């Protein structure tokens, strides 16, 4: 009898372990931090717009689909996603607001199309304009080369009579650099971002005659390794001039023919990770060349959403370097705008 009691207790304990785990993470841990192409669908499913039930069940459908997909069982992954869609349709207008349910179905169908290989991405466009630095006048006939920093793929167009250009039918997204040269020898560059969720991106480039200064350096990651294909942008606040380029295979970069407009802020960025870094320097009449290296850091802690946005809990959720203090906002921001 004693053995039976011990056995029963053991079985009960073992069976309670997953139950406790399930309870502790509210049942949705299974679909947190899923890889692409399931990430977006999982995030949308966890939104409070989806009541529970059916939220936990739907979450497990996505997680199961991901597991099947990972194992190469595409059919089973699609089956799970079809059951997910059926669940959404069942809850539409009841536990899930109708328009949000439609968005969930659309995203699930997108994932299915990726799995079946029938996904056709919407094409995107980069629209831009080229203007003179001094007169702000549109520059017609300028040659514009747009290069995505991660893939290196580039597209060259010419501005129209209004100084505008458009690169259409793009299926690639990410951060890009627009380099411009004009027939009268002016040059300029600017950075832009084209997100895969957007149909277009807009970039304005100002062009000017060549300056006599240069900035050199190397981009490193936080472990000290050189970073190729990183965006490097120099900002001169005194004159609002900006220059952008991409680091080479060995992580080095050079920004030539820039105007030595005093203090500069140098920003580095890696497209695939979002890692970034910055440094400062000075280019003046005394110093026409400088070398500044950049170290890119990815965030060490990622919150589930923006936390403590009003600093009501001090610096909880925020990362700091150097001196950061919390004060009564009215001491600094004394003018609650009463309108214009």
């Amino acid at each position: 009898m004693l053995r039976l009691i011990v056995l029963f207790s053991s079985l009960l304990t073992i069976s309670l372990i997953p139950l406790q785990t399930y309870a502790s993470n509210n049942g949705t841990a299974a679909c947190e931090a899923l890889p692409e192409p399931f990430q977006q669908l999982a995030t949308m499913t966890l939104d409070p717009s989806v009541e529970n039930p059916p939220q936990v069940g739907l979450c497990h459908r996505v997680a199961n689909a991901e597991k099947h997909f990972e194992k190469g069982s595409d059919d089973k992954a699609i089956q799970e996603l079809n059951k997910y869609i059926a669940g959404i349709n069942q809850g539409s207008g009841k536990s899930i607001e109708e328009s949000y349910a439609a968005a969930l179905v659309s995203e699930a169908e997108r994932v299915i199309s990726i799995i079946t290989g029938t996904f056709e991405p919407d094409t995107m466009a980069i629209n831009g304009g080229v203007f003179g630095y001094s007169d702000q006048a549109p520059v017609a006939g300028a040659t514009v080369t747009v290069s995505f920093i991660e893939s290196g793929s580039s597209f060259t167009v010419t501005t129209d009579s209004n100084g505008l250009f458009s690169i259409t039918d793009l299926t690639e997204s990410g951060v890009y650099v627009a380099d411009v040269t004009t027939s009268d020898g002016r040059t300029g560059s600017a950075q832009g971002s084209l997100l895969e969720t957007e149909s277009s991106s807009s970039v304005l480039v100002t062009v000017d005659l060549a300056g006599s200064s240069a900035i050199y350096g190397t981009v490193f990651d936080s472990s000290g390794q050189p970073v190729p294909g990183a965006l490097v942008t120099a900002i001169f606040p005194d004159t609002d001039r900006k220059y952008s380029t991409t680091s080479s295979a060995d992580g080095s970069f050079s920004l030539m023919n820039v105007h030595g407009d005093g203090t500069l802020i140098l920003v580095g960025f890696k497209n695939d990770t979002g890692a970034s870094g910055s440094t400062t320097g000075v280019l003046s009449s005394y110093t026409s060349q400088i070398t500044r290296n950049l170290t890119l850091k990815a965030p060490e802690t990622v919150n589930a959403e923006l936390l403590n946005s009003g600093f009501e809990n001090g610096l909880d959720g925020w990362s700091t370097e150097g001196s950061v203090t919390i004060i009564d906002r009215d001491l600094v921001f004394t003018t609650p705008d009463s309108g214009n």
Partner: protein
Amino acid sequence: MDMTKFRLPAISAVVPCTALMLLAGAQGATAADGCPVTQAAVVSNAGSQSAKGTLSQAFVVPPAYEAVSGRLRFLSSEWPQYYGTEYNDTYLARLTAPGKVEIIASGNVNSSSWSSGMLGYNGATPEINYNVDLSGLVGKTVQLAYEVQDVGDTIVDSALAVDAVKILRTEQFVPVPGEGGALTGSATISGSYGQAVKLTFKNQNILGTTISVKDTGPFGETKESIILPQQSVTFTFSSFGEEPMGWNFEVSTKSDAFVVSYGVESTWTEGMPPNPCY
């Protein structure tokens, strides 16, 4: 409840003595009845080995996050003595995510206009409003970072004051009845709206055009874009104050041909009760 516990978290590093004295007076923060009590952070390069002060947060963008907005103020003791020299501290606010980098605000001592100081610093700039679109970043990890860096010396300090970061959600915006129409050249759009306003412009011409929209308020932003024929662009502006508040936007173009239609959405419209929280 003793609110001072929540109002004055531990000071993380060295700050000027005068600033500490002022911080002691920070306990009297007020907020309108029923409004959340929020505070501000001050990022300084004082005492930093790297000559840099940074405040940052990385987070996953939830669905329905439309934008984040806020206010900054650059403070420096390099003004007025070192104004015009290369002893010229800088500030930078940026948003980064895989596939996106946006410089929210940047500047230095020389590029700023100055008034008398606060928190122990010699000078303070006007407030700098910013607004960052997050609508295309749902599910992605973004990082919001505010920095102050020394340039040329590490002796004279500067700081960046960062006001509470406001989250704007899609469901907060409603169309403003009776607002909207067509523009064929430079024009003004004005009215009583909420703390955040979305202006959507559609190019009705057969030619592409540039468009620039300036919030003419004291700390207003200017936003620019290119719109191809039959395409649209949306600009979001935000301000800190009680709703409703007066807004005035100047719309202009660098292009010869300009025919656009526009609509206005806001977080407050006629018929809604006033909102004293900001």
